[in-house]
Every structure is written in structure tokens, then in C-alpha cells.
């Protein structure tokens, strides 16, 4: 993966961590070449945050080892801390203080003198479009602005390796796109980036390589295109407006797809992988559904998305409901026929 002769920016081998009975990480391997973006994709509780906490020296692993820029995260933790930046899910900024004060204080904690900390803060505020709000308390900022300030704080020490733990979770779509622009320009500047996300489109947009984590294990790795290839060809998808006819529709197309169709009873959306027989399968599906007397909407072939990949690999959708009850799912509800979906891929 990495160029010959250059060691990776992040190297993880056989990393394990348990919290009591819960095995959060069951042996994870990662290798991130310098200047690239690794997207770590997985649902809540998959172990993403645990991995980031170990790599940023906040947590000691039970087994395995992890190197950041060649420094061991356990034995050379303070060297690692001087190399990295971390921006977490919750804005770790002091809301009562102004944006400028927040960044200046972080600069001081990175052992910049006041003379260096002040211009560095001003520079970052400028870069992140926060100059006008610089002297306002951070609590008056919008969610997107707070997240940008938080990210700016993680860059004060000019990190070689940046960890972003779900940088856009909870942001509105516009702020998300703004955040993506910022992240892209960071990477263009040569920073190595490890990004965790539960949004598949985010990993697709930003990452050079993607690893999919579920239940503390890496279940797949590769580029977005390679992962999409794992689904095998095109996906046939349509919606059944009459929810009572959903199972009839699924039955009608069972023979057409490769494996079992995936059915979402709530939304009436059905999809099935059809391999390389795209147009042929489309025609067959139309005939078969017509013969069964089922009405459909939006019947079409499409390229597989990372959603399909995740569903295929894990048997459940990537964006699950949070334990607290807050719903985060975007397009798809929970996979209803979990084991079926898993079978559909393995066959």
C-alpha cells in the first residue's frame, strides 16, 4: 500500500481492547500511508471511537501495537501527542470563551509563546471563516461554526496526523458540505487523516481507503470502488406504494436477482443485486411484477452505493438508531431480513 521505503503514518497490528465483558476491539490491523485519508466506517458501537482513543493515547490497548509516525502509542505517548491532532464528536471548546481565546489557550498548551500563539490563532480563524466571529463567545456560534472552531483547535500544533472522530455527526447538510471542503483542503496540504464516520457517502467522498469495522473487527478494506465491486454488478431497486403487496413483489423478483432481495417493509423499498445482467434483469423484473399485478414506482438499475456494500457485508444498515433513541438513519431503515441479506452476498 505504501510507497517503498516510507513507513506508514499509522500502523496498527492486532489491536485488542475489552471493557469488562464487552470486547470492543477483537484484533484490528490498519496501515495508513503518509498523506492519505483512511475512512473508518461502522455503526455505533462498532469500535471506531475505541480505536481512535487508543491511537490518540487516551486509552491503553489490551494487546497488539499501534504506531503513529513511528512512535508507539503506549511507550512513546508524549511523542505521539506532539505529532497528532484530534477533533472529536463533541465540540471540546470552552463555550464561554471567544473563538480567539479558545485557540490562543490551545496554542499556549502546545507550548507556543504568546507571541506565536496570537498570530497562529488569527491565522486559523481566518482560514476557517471565523474571523468576524473571533471575539464572540463560542456559545453564540452555530453548530457548524463550533465544529470548525473545534477542528481549528486540533490544527494549532500543526499535526502530521489528524484524527477526526465523526466530524459531521449532527450537522445540517450545508454545514456538512462545508466541513468536507475544509477536510479536502487539509488533505491537499499533506496531512495524513484518519476519519471515522457512520455516513457512507462521507467515506466515499473523502477517503482514499476505507476499512469497514463491525463488532470490533475489520470486515472489509479497500477503495470505495473495490468495496462496491464486492456487491457484484448493478442493483435493481424500486418502491412498492401499496405496503400490503411488498412481499408479493419480493417473491416476484426472487428468481431474477442474485440471491435474496432486500426488503424494507416500512418504506416499501426493495432492492436486489443483479450482477452483470443489468438490462436483461430489468426487463424480466418488469414482466414478472406485471404478471403478479404489483404496481411499482421508480424501478431502475443503479451502481451499488456503499450502503449496499455495508448491508452486504454486515447484514444490517450502516446507520443504526442510536442507543439513546435519536434516529440517525437517512435512507434506509433497519435491515428486516438480516440473515437473508447476508446470505445474498455470500452466495
Amino acid at each position, binding site marked *: 500500500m505504501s510507497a517503498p521505503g516510507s513507513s506508514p503514518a499509522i500502523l496498527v497490528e492486532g489491536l485488542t481492547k475489552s471493557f469488562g465483558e464487552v470486547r470492543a476491539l477483537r484484533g484490528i490491523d490498519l496501515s495508513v500511508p503518509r*498523506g492519505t485519508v483512511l475512512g473508518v466506517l461502522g455503526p455505533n458501537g462498532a469500535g471506531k471511537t475505541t480505536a481512535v*482513543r487508543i491511537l*490518540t*493515547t*487516551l*486509552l491503553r490497548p489490551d494487546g497488539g501495537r499501534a504506531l503513529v509516525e513511528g*512512535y508507539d502509542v503506549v511507550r*512513546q505517548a*508524549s*511523542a505521539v*501527542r*506532539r*505529532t*497528532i491532532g*484530534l477533533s*472529536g*464528536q*463533541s465540540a*471540546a471548546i*470552552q463555550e*464561554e*470563551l471567544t473563538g480567539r*481565546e479558545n485557540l490562543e*489557550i*490551545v496554542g*499556549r*498548551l*502546545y*507550548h507556543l509563546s504568546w507571541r506565536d500563539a496570537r498570530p497562529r490563532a488569527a491565522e486559523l480563524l481566518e*482560514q*476557517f*471563516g471565523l474571523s468576524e466571529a473571533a471575539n464572540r*463567545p463560542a456559545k453564540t456560534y452555530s453548530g457548524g461554526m463550533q465544529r470548525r472552531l473545534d477542528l481549528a*483547535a486540533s*490544527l494549532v*500544533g*500543526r*499535526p*502530521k496526523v489528524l484524527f477526526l472522530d465523526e466530524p459531521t455527526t449532527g450537522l445540517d447538510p450545508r454545514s456538512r458540505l*462545508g466541513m468536507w*471542503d*475544509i477536510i479536502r*483542503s*487539509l488533505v*491537499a*496540504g*499533506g*496531512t*495524513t487523516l484518519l476519519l471515522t464516520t457512520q455516513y457512507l457517502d462521507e467515506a466515499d467522498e473523502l477517503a482514499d481507503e476505507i476499512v469497514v469495522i463491525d463488532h470490533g473487527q475489520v470486515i472489509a478494506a479497500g477503495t470505495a470502488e473495490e468495496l462496491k465491486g464486492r456487491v457484484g454488478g448493478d442493483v435493481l431497486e424500486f418502491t412498492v406504494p401499496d405496503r400490503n403487496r411488498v412481499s408479493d413483489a419480493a417473491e416476484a423478483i426472487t428468481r431474477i436477482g442474485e440471491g435474496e432481495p432486500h426488503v424494507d417493509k416500512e418504506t416499501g423499498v426493495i432492492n436486489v443485486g443483479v450482477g452483470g445482467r443489468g438490462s436483461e434483469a430489468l426487463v424480466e423484473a418488469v414482466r414478472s411484477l406485471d404478471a403478479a399485478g404489483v404496481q411499482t414506482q421508480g424501478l431502475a438499475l443503479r451502481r451499488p452505493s456503499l450502503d449496499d456494500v455495508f448491508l452486504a457485508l454486515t447484514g444490517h444498515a450502516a446507520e443504526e438508531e442510536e442507543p439513546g433513541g435519536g434516529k440517525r438513519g437517512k435512507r434506509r431503515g433497519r435491515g428486516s431480513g438480516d440473515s437473508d441479506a447476508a446470505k445474498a452476498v455470500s452466495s
Partner: protein
Amino acid sequence: MTAVAPTAGAGVPISPAGPSLLTRAHWAVTDTLTITRRNLLVWMRVPAYIMFTVIQPVMFVLLFRYVFGGAIQVPGVKGGYVNFLLPGIIGQTAAFATFGTAIALAQELQKGVIDRLKSMPMARSAVLAGRLVADTIRMFITIVIVVGVGYAVGFRFENGVGLAIAMIVLATVFGLAICCISAYTGLAIGDEESVQAFGLVWLFPLTFLSSAFVPIASMPGWLQAFANNQPVTYVINVMRSMALGGPIAADLWKSIAWLAGIFIVFAPLAVRAYKRAS
């Protein structure tokens, strides 16, 4: 906003051996001062915090001076109840000020601030040390204000300037000891509401079941047994003797022993809770 182009790797060069012991000691001090500054800035920005730390003790002074005071007999105290009251109020104020310590640490833990600070190359001791220094400064300011209000309602130091200063110093050291307990509870419990509720459970009895507000002789016998033998009583008795005159030595040694004991037990516990905190 689009022109973000940080130069990766242009930071301070890293030597694998790490900075020298002297450099690290220097950083521990400057980082503590940075965190202290940050905490004091936050305190000054939030009117509610100032209300809680300044207005509340002043209200206690006025309440006990003018509402309850008339009904409380303090035979043999020079200057009457207001003189008896003020050292007690100051001790109670110092103890209650540590509510803020526990709540602030629990909040920082919950919000991920402590995590974030731990991922930086700053001295790890500075978060806790800076919190204690800032809260001690805050406490000292509150004590001085309460003394001022006391003077306005008739309190007088009767025992000279030197012992008056000694009383304020003792109150501050006492507050710092209680601060260690609060820091530990804040970090160990880690949830703002629970910390607040728990604070009431131990801070109220400890301060009110003491010689702070009434002579212990006026309490029922079983309560006297507790009130006579707990640290807040020892400390407040010494403060009162320093302010008004009277025997100091015996209770001073007991106070010092108790305060030393609290530091020895709770400072390491707080440090351990901080290290484990996540």
C-alpha cells in the same frame, strides 16, 4: 474558508528522548497557569457563577445576622453574635465554593474537554492543578468579600492584623483541602446532576453540624458528639480564636492533622480519578 493549507509537519521538531526534566517542570507550571487563566476567564464571563460564589455567601451573612441571629445566644463572645458568626460563615463559604470544582470537572469530563486536553502535549497534571489554583483564587476573593460585608454589618477583628490574616489563610487552606474531596467526587461520579446532589449530602451536614453557626452546647447530646469531633468544628474554632482571641494551640494541631489527612488521602484519589477519567 476554502483556502485552508496548513503545512504538515512544520511544528516543533520532536526528539524521541523527549524534553528534559527541567523543561517538563517548566511546562507543568506554565500549563497550570494557562488552565488557571482559562478557568478564571470562564468564571468572570458567567454571571450565574459569580452569583453563586459571591451573592450566596453575602445572603447567608445577612440572613444569620438579621433573621436568625437575634434568637441565638452566644454568652461570653466579645462583640456578640455577628463576631461569632463571621468566622463560621467564612469556613462554610470556603467549603461551599468547592461545589463549583466538582461540577466544573464533571462537566469537562462529560463534554470531552478533559479527553481533548489529554491528547495534547501539555503537562497532564495541569488540568487538575489549574482547576485547584483557579478555584482557590476564586475562593480567596469570595472570603475577602464576605469579610468586607461582615465589617459593614458590625463584625470586627478583635485580635490584631497578623492573626486576622492568619485566619484568612487558614480558611483558604481549609477550602483547598475540601476542594480535593470535591475534585475527587466530581471526577469519580462524572455526571453533573449526581455530583450536585451528592455535594449537598456531604457538604451540608459537615458545615451545619459544626460550630459554624451556633454554639455546640445548644445541640442535643448525640449531635454534640459528632459536632465536637469533626474537622470543620476544629478549623472554625481556631479561626474564631484567631479573629476574636482565645486558645488556639490545641484545636490548631487537630486542624492541621485533619487537613493534612484530607490532602494525603484525597489529593492522590483525585489524581487517580483524573487519570482514569474518560
